[in-house]
């Protein structure tokens, strides 16, 4: 399926865009992690990388749909 991924902070630089489209063979957050890691190896160098689905932190087992709002959450640093 085709996903549109929102990026923030350093992930926008690594992936060269704020809304990045990706073809995903698998169906879960874990599959997406693998695909991202393969395409953008620099993501692995981050202190942490969470994936948010529909504006909430998602587990690796979460199943994705094309209509989900997916976002990458590199280490937060507000405050």
């Amino acid at each position: 399926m085709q996903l549109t991924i929102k990026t923030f902070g350093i992930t926008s630089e690594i992936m060269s865009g704020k809304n990045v489209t990706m073809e995903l063979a698998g169906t879960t957050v874990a599959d997406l992690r693998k695909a991202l890691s393969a395409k953008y190896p620099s993501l692995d160098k981050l202190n942490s990388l969470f994936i948010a689905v529909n504006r909430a932190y998602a587990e690796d087992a979460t199943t994705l749909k094309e209509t989900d709002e997916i976002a990458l959450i590199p280490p937060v640093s507000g405050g």
Partner: protein
Amino acid sequence: MIKLTDKPIDVSKVIEAAKHPTAGGLNVFIGTVRDFHKQKNKRVVRLEFEAYEPMAITEIQKIAAVAIDRWDIKAWAISHSLAKLNVGEVAVVIAVSTAHRKASFEACQFIIDQLKEKVPIWKKEIFEDGEEWVSAHP
């Protein structure tokens, strides 16, 4: 009250929003831009923020819900800047009022600690010779 804003934060307004007639203690945390990054030994020129706004608001609401469950909070307010900030300017204000003072300190500290850990807001430090997203890399 939760507010993410690219205008200068009006600290007094945040405090007013957290006042309550049944409260005796009001604790306020104000995060300001420090002029120096110790680990990097570099002077900070400016800060920039980015937020995943709808999720940031949801996460702040979750943190507040936990705090309200844990302490007898009478009123609270949070404002976070999304502006370009110079040294000394206000990045975040958290105000919490409780009947007695000890709880106001504990609840306010809990909220800022959790905010820094969970809320999707990112800070970029601009140095004289470059810039960097804070905490991104080891």
